[in-house]
């Protein structure tokens, strides 16, 4: 009786909408779980017998080594930049984040273009020095090549989080270790790494989730992993059932990683202490050591950003006139349109859910805010399969309606842009939700309570008080989502309606059709937009700190 009453009292349009949105967001994942145990067909039997082991092996190899190398590079850079002075330190502090602006698939085909037979490296060796190098030496279309690409473009996740963490550490901690006789190496391994454990694990798991989400690099490099297998099952064999089984395994892998991340982090959360600690002042090293340090930082920056960017820029200059056509303008318009609409819907959903979860303390609201951010960890290909099966089911249910409306088509929703936008919402809701949640957290509840006691119901309070107060968080979230949708590849490739291309899918298509130079303009645009996202993100972060 009391439970019933309590439910009735808490039921309002916010809670109903939040539950509805959450169920919709969950529906792709649920539809995978429902169908994963359906009776397998011969395709699945074949994959299970001959290929599955290979998928697992390749996936795990890439994940493991990318993880290790990203940690080595990311943590070492974070420590060196924080602890020592060297030329251009301020520039590198931010510059080392820039590789993140190059999506790995773009980096992947750029590097292949640089080192293949007609690329700048081999042709220079041939033409300038008369060296005919063994092409095998320059072949990067293999697992080590993919690991290199993922590492060099994704290590900034580890670098950013670890550096932010180290910057907040008190100088006295490090100074104490030095006074107790620790040399630089001992200090790094016995103090820095253990204290930054949570940050390192946090950054590395972001890297791993990105690797598992990737389709562009592995497909271009011809490596068999889960995402490529999902694409093959779907497009090659037209077998959604098998694609679902593969997606199910990949999703379980993601959950396993999230579980490990939590377990490894232990009870420690990232400790952003508010107390004003004396920050660590960088010290100078001997000339020889400074030179080595400078060389290391420069090499990483060159490999992760400067080289691929300059190469793409040169290609863009070569092909600009050919590529720039009304179709290309249409491509930009398509990308901007889906990104704007998706970002708008995501922010609206994020605001409804954010407002509901902050105003109610129950288990339900906690669960809803967890689910909201889950989509971002699930690879795009998995979400795509889930969304497709959900929409096919929906179309079948709506068939009666189509007939009644005299529409002569069995499926409408699953061929439309609505499905793609729905999938974006499901995958990127977390990116819009986090700033909204932080914004609400910052203003607290008393303004809302004051407004309600002055006679305004929840909706009016939201429009007149809450929304104006978290305006900048909403704008920040909108921009971040907009950019993420612009860059997205696997989900868009799988769900784009017929004859609908975005900048990223077109760039990828060019590259796949051996027209890497033509892919440059779209790639440069994407890099520019991603760079903007990184800048925005840090501008928001800096503002939050203040």
């Amino acid at each position, binding site marked *: 009786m009391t439970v019933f009453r309590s439910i009735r*009292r808490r039921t309002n349009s916010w809670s109903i909408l939040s539950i509805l949105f959450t169920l919709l967001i969950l529906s792709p994942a649920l539809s995978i779980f429902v169908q994963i145990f359906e009776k397998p067909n011969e395709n699945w039997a074949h994959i299970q017998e001959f290929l599955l082991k290979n998928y697992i092996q390749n996936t795990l190899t890439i994940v493991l080594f990318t993880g290790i190398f990203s940690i080595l590079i990311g943590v070492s850079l974070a420590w060196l930049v924080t602890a020592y002075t060297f030329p251009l330190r301020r520039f590198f502090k931010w510059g080392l984040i820039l590789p993140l602006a190059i999506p790995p698939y773009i980096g992947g085909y750029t590097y292949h273009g640089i080192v293949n037979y007609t690329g700048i490296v081999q042709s220079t060796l041939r033409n300038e020095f008369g060296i005919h190098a063994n092409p095998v030496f320059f072949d990067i279309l293999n697992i080590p090549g993919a690991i290199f690409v993922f590492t060099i473009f994704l290590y900034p996740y580890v670098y950013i989080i670890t550096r932010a963490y180290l910057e907040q550490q008190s100088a006295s901690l490090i100074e104490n270790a030095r006074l107790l006789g620790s040399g630089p190496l001992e200090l790094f391994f016995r103090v820095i790494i253990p204290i930054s454990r949570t940050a390192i694990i946090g950054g590395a798991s972001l890297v791993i989730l990105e690797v598992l989400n990737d389709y562009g690099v592995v497909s271009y490099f011809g490596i068999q992993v889960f995402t490529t297998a999902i694409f093959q099952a779907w497009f090659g064999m037209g077998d959604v059932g098998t694609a679902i089984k593969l997606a199910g395994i990949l999703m379980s892998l993601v959950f396993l990683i999230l579980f490990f991340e939590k377990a490894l982090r232990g009870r420690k959360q990232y400790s952003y202490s508010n107390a004003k600690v004396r920050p660590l002042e960088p010290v100078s090293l001997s000339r020889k050591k400074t030179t080595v340090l400078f060389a290391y930082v420069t090499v990483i920056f060159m490999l992760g950003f400067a080289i691929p960017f300059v190469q793409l820029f040169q290609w863009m200059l070569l092909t600009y006139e050919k590529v720039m056509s009304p179709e290309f303008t249409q491509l930009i318009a398509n990308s901007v349109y889906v990104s704007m609409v998706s970002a708008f819907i995501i922010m609206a959903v994020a605001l409804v859910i954010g407002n509901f979860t902050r105003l109610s303390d129950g288990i339900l609201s906690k669960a809803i805010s967890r689910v909201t951010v889950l989509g971002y960890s699930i690879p795009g290909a998995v979400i795509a399969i889930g969304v497709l099966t959900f929409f096919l089911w929906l179309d079948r249910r709506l068939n009666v309606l189509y007939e009644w409306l005299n529409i002569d088509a069995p499926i409408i929703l699953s061929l439309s842009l609505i499905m793609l936008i729905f999938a974006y919402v499901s995958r990127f809701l977390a990116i819009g939700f986090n700033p909204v949640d932080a914004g609400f957290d910052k203003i607290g509840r008393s303004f809302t309570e004051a407004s309600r*006691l002055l006679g*305004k119901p929840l909706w009016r309070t939201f429009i007149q008080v809450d929304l104006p107060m978290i305006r900048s968080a909403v704008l920040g979230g909108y921009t971040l989502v907009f950019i993420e949708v612009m860059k997205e590849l696997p989900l868009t490739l799988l769900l784009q309606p017929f004859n609908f291309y975005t900048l990223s899918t077109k760039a990828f298509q060019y590259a796949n059709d051996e027209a890497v130079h033509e892919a440059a303009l779209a790639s440069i645009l994407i890099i520019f937009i991603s760079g903007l996202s990184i800048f925005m993100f840090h501008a928001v972060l800096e503002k939050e700190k203040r």
Partner: protein
Amino acid sequence: MVMQLHDVTFTYRNAKEQTIRRVSMALEKGEIVTILGQSGSGKSTVLRLIAGLEVPEQGEMVIEERTIFDAKTFIQPEKRGVGMVFQDYALFPHMTVAGNIKFGLKKMKRTERDERLASVIELVGLTGFEKRYPHELSGGQQQRVALARAMAPNPSILLFDEPFSNLDADLQVKIRDELRTILKKTGITSIFVTHDQADARAIADRVIVMEKGSIIKTGTPALILS
């Protein structure tokens, strides 16, 4: 009676013990009551329950002969006709002083609204500050705006949650005395929550002492605080 609470009980989610245990009280028209207690005694929670910001487990609450809570009823905060001055004032930072005060004045003609604004702003001595934003005011002035905003819609009862805790000691004494004068002049029934006996002595007609979620004493300040 303006307000009656009968056997109100409440437990915060995840709390092991009841926060409020069978609290009953009644307020006469125009009375100023202070609820005195240590932190964690449940005194602020009583205000939140009266305002409708928390939902009691059981009990009954009546304001001006209208049941606002019982086994079958729960009136939403915006419909209770209760005003509240928050500890941190909660002035809307994106609105001017006038905007804040007029915020709760719905269903009034524009001229009526302006008149009401002028009268409450005069009452709290802030005439001329209408166009300022909250961050352009001192702590004491912000406090007065919060009071004017809560009084403007003419609530049946006005609640104050530790209203002086953010003020300097000197200002605290001054505002306390002014506040009593204003409240007595307008005849609004009020409940103050404080942990400071001096506040209670200076402002209250009657003092209620709470401990561990229950009322343990009630009476005039002279009787309770001697």
